[in-house]
């Protein structure tokens, strides 16, 4: 046994000169990494730097004034409100749809899958128009809504509806392949052990799809904050009332208030960076727990 082991070690020591079949020569590797890094800097790091530079160009006070100005505050509040409503709705819907599609066989399954993709296929502006036609004062449901004194279009409910529609696929799309690949054996074994459906979902299904859910929520969140086209159509762009952050940025930009526009942009970018940081933190803690469990 020991002779075999030492023999293996011997071969290992001689190994560094060998190359795996899939390994490329050093210059190819360097070139590919260089291109990837160059591309990233050009299209990701550079714009982010420009935004931050523009935001803080005239000092911290100007930046602070731009984001504490009442209209900006209203836009930030509205955006956070929309996210707080839309993300949970799409989270529940996405998990339910993925569960149904991955774990059950039923008629009309392929139609459901296609329908979930629909919001991605339609241009946001068209989405906005659809809801204006449907819910606007001249629209199909408009008179009924007016009778009951409900304002949807050019008001907050309309914004929530179009953003919820546009971000619907994120969680479901992330989870369907994951859940299909995981199959249903773990759920079945949970049931044979006496657990009910609810216990099985919380204790077996959800931990297994946790990462998919988190990725889905992050994407959904980012898009809900950034959604522009559909909101622009249905919100009516009332300053301080129905302007979300992206709309507010556009207004500022059109008024040549570049520093203010960049300041609010930096906030939006900052929120995105925070979500990614949170994701990495959760990722890291989970990994550490796993290692501790293993030790």
């Amino acid at each position, binding site marked *: 046994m020991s002779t075999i082991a030492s023999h293996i070690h011997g071969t290992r020591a001689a190994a560094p000169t060998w190359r795996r079949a899939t390994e490329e020569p050093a210059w190819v590797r360097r070139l590919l990494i260089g291109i990837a890094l160059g591309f990233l800097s050009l299209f990701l790091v550079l714009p982010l730097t420009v935004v931050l530079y523009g935001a803080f160009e005239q000092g911290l006070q100007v930046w602070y004034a731009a984001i504490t100005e009442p209209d900006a505050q209203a836009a930030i509040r509205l955006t956070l409100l929309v996210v707080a409503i839309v993300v949970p709705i799409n989270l529940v819907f996405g998990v339910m749809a993925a569960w149904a599609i991955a774990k059950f066989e039923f008629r009309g399954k392929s139609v459901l899958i296609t329908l979930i993709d629909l919001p991605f296929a339609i241009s946001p502006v068209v989405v906005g128009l659809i809801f204006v036609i449907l819910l606007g004062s001249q629209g199909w449901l408009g008179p009924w809504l007016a009778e009951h004194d409900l304002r949807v279009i050019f008001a907050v409910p309309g914004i929530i509806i179009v953003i919820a529609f546009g971000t619907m696929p994120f969680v479901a799309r992330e989870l369907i392949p994951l859940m299909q690949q995981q199959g249903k*054996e*773990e759920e*079945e*074994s*949970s*049931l*044979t*052990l*006496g*657990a*009910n459906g609810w*216990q099985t979902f919380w*204790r*077996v299904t959800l*931990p*297994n799809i946790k990462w998919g859910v988190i990725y889905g929520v992050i994407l959904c969140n980012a898009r809900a904050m950034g959604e522009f086209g559909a909101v622009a159509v249905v919100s009516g762009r009332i300053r301080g009332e129905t302007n979300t952050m992206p709309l507010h940025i556009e207004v500022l930009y059109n008024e040549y208030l570049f520093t203010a526009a960049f300041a609010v942009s930096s906030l939006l970018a900052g929120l995105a960076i925070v979500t990614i940081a949170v994701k990495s933190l959760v990722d890291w803690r989970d990994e550490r727990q*796993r290692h501790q*469990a*293993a030790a």
Partner: protein
Amino acid sequence: MSIEIEHVNKRFGHFVAVDDVTLSLPEGQLTALLGPSGSGKTSLLRIIAGLEFPDSGRIRFHGEDATDVHVSRRGVGFVFQHYALFKHMTVFDNVAYGLTVQPRRLRPSKAEIRNRVTRLLELVQLDWTANRLPAQLSGGQRQRIALARALAVEPKVLLLDEPFGALDAKVRAELRRWLRRLHDEIHLTSVFVTHDQEEALEVSDRIVVMNQGRVEQEGTPEEVYDHPANPFVFSFLGQVNLFHARVQDGQARIGDLALPTAATGDQPEGHGLAYVRPHDIEILADDSAQGALAAVVEGITVVGPTARLELKVAGARDLIHAELPKSRLRSLGLSQGSNTWVRPLNGRVFVEPGRTPADPESVGM
């Protein structure tokens, strides 16, 4: 707890998975459901567990109708081919799972759960893995944990779906002997599905041979192996050589050879097929024995102490397979291309209905 299966049917679309199966699985025994893939054995097991519902028919546990009882209330332990351990839980939490999901008033105390899990892990000889994750264990260890987990809820019956199917040959052999010993200790009514006849013969008290959703035969391993009910069972339980035979006066004749077969008495006359196992083919050095057939050695494979010969018999289409001890091969002095004589010693003849006596010289098929 005995299991009675009464006229159970199950279809998936147009595919008939289980076709009017009636079976009684006696209490405390280890029964193998044996069959090729698509024979309906796994579907039947899942119906017993309550993971599938039969289109018609009843399942009774000890006389009590369980057909409409939900899987979580049925009290079955189920072991899956690919273990189905909860990946995100430690081994301890996996085994404890069935206890921790019980309603609060029935749930054992934390200390009691700890005790029971530890005892079960000792039973499967893996108590040192309690804090590991399933991914850190080997396949055989994972399957033993899956078994401990299934036993934790003290099931009335234990159902195993190809429990050794995903393991390599050596581990599989060890684990099935271990399962047999475990069953002798705990005497739980158990059913396991397998497509491996050797596994079924070695491990089980009873074998149920299934094919195309139907039960072909049931009995003890000896009964099924020594007295196969039909050609399917005969050929599924091991390698087989086929000889065309003429059946007359309760005897099967292959050429000049009268085959001394146990069950020819009740055979009607006509054309039959003789099924002969490779170890029932006698290899002769000369043609002195009556009815020996001339053959040429086409190939020799030596596997451990056994030699396997492939022989070409004149006039036959297929090669004949024979098995003999390596020492016998040596004393015969056979090598590839040698001329020799073969004689079926024992076999089973099944008459093909509606066929007249065929050309007596045609041998093999």
